[in-house]
């Protein structure tokens, strides 16, 4: 075990002497947590609306005003020809066209019924869908306004209404940052654990020093532990920096069960380090290792429930997502930081990630050959 001391001392010296690694460890969490939660936002704003108004009536103006005052829409175009409207969509000056037909007001007053036409540019799918949904909502509420104008109170409400009040648990203001930050923390840990460890080992191969270690009496497990332990600890450093940034910038208090988060992260890091090790065993240069790790990282992140809910993925993708270790960490981060979950709530996660860890590390040690 005395040898371990020398191995670890060497690894730490090399890490702290490498300015690139230090920059990564401190700047990566800072930049990702400062920029991403603000920029990568699901809430769609600034939808450009064009209005084709054939009616020019009081009611049509009222509707236009209501749309204009909503924070989601920018009224960019106005005309009375639908042909013009299509041109706006083609030239992308409008994402959404609302066509108000002639006699809109007349029909509404006389027959209590009128039609509107919505055309949506669906090139950017989510934007178009959400835009149409927002517009429908505004029109519905405008409808209510008119109705209440006509009905004389305090008569009985002629039409029973169900009003829906939603209460957002665990994220009361539906703040998008609160949702994103734990996920980004999870990705950061994955990068440090999976990328840096793989690159570090492959670098020894590239330089040729690994040969020298392979003829030395260092045992397989000593070499591997020497590589794992420093990056395991660095993972905690990154996690701590990340938690501090999310508190200072986003005001997210990680809940009373911080210990749980650290414990789970510790086990998770072991699993993802095993992944890094495995990548390094099958690559000979840092370039190769980076490309392979990048390929997996993309899948890891996109199929982890970080950006899109797993439940809405097709069945096969859901299976991939539940094999993906990142899924579990993203989930646990959100559980602990938003819901204040305790260890017993994540038994399944612990078992799954523990199993993955054992599997990946066993494979890694098994495929690491001291000789060819």
């Amino acid at each position, binding site marked *: 075990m005395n040898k371990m001391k020398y*191995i670890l*001392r060497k690894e730490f010296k090399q890490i702290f002497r490498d300015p690139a690694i230090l920059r990564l460890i401190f700047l990566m969490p800072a930049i990702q947590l400062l920029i991403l939660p603000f920029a990568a936002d699901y809430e769609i704003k600034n939808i450009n609306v064009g209005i084709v108004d054939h009616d020019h009536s009081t009611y049509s103006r009222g509707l236009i005003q209501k749309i204009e005052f909503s924070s989601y829409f920018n009224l960019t175009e106005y005309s009375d020809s639908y042909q013009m409207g299509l041109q706006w969509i083609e030239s992308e000056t409008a994402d959404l066209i609302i066509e108000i037909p002639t006699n809109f007001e007349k029909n509404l007053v006389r027959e209590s019924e009128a039609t509107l036409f919505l055309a949506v540019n669906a090139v950017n799918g989510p934007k178009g869908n959400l835009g149409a949904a927002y517009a429908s909502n505004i029109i519905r509420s405008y409808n209510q306004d008119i109705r209440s104008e006509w009905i004389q109170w305090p008569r009985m409400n002629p039409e029973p209404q169900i009003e829906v009040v939603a209460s957002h648990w665990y994220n009361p203001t539906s703040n998008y940052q609160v949702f994103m930050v734990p996920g980004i923390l999870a990705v950061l840990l994955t990068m440090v654990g999976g990328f840096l460890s793989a690159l570090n080992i492959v670098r020894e191969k590239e330089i*040729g*020093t690994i040969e020298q270690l392979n003829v030395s009496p260092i*045992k397989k497990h000593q070499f591997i532990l020497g590589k794992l332990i420093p990056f395991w600890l660095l993972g905690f450093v990154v996690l701590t920096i990340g938690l501090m940034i999310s508190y200072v910038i986003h005001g997210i208090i990680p809940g009373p069960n911080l210990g749980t988060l650290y414990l789970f992260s510790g086990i998770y890091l072991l699993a993802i380090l095993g992944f890094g090790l495995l990548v390094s065993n099958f690559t000979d240069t840092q370039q190769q290792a980076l490309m392979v790790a990048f390929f997996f990282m993309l899948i890891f992140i996109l199929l982890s429930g970080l950006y899109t809910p797993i439940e809405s993925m097709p069945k096969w993708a859901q299976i991939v997502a539940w094999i993906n270790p990142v899924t579990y960490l993203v989930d646990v981060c959100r559980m602990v930081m938003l819901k204040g979950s305790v260890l017993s709530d994540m038994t399944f996660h612990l078992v799954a990630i523990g199993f993955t860890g054992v599997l990946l590390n066993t494979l890694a040690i098994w495929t690491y050959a001291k*000789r060819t």
Partner: protein
Amino acid sequence: MKENLYQMSKSYSIIAESLTKTFGSFTAVDSISFNVSAGEIFGFLGANGAGKTTAMRMLCGLSKPTSGSAVVAGFNIDKESESIKQRIGYMSQKFSLYQDLTVSENIEFYGGIYGLGKQKLAQSAKELLHRLHLEKDARTLVRALPLGWKQKLSFSIAIMHQPSIVFLDEPTGGVDPVTRRQFWQMIYEAADHGITIFVTTHYMDEAEYCDRVAIMVDGKIEALDSPQQMKEQMKAEDMNEVFYRLARTATRASA
């Protein structure tokens, strides 16, 4: 046969018996057999691609022989490759110290992983730095040293744990003639201390410094004798001529 090998291993540092390594259909090392006595300086000569490095890697336990066997420092390379490792030193073709560690940090690391005690390590480090006149550069990053110095440091570190054999794979490649001379001086000193030297080279003047040399052509040992004997037998003026005559028969393209 096996019993025999162990009997012989008492007087020999290395015994190789029909050692063979094939990569697919390519036979890198083709059934070579030789013995190296303890304390001998044994030169392994050959053109690029003749199979020198592959043979050496098998003897160090870095590469598994396809067939044949060898005993190094009294251990079978196939079954006891881990035990061999404490008893050998190895200096590879690639520069093998850590460039981003200082001279003393490299010494400390390699001394440490070979299990030198703290006191022994401190003492060896001091002696080593003194012998190489590197005391002032102890805290210099190895990256900043000239190549010749790096190679001398590399060699000194490879024998710091007092192995019974040291394997040197083209240790003087790219080194200037003066430093090469100093390097060989160090090899002689190590041999005087009883360390067996197994060295590959393609500098023929260096071949003259060896007690015995084996010349490899296309994976086979074409000649094995002292340089003196070889020259006399082939009526050649120097080792260069000996080598040319033997290597001319090579069919493998040399890079």
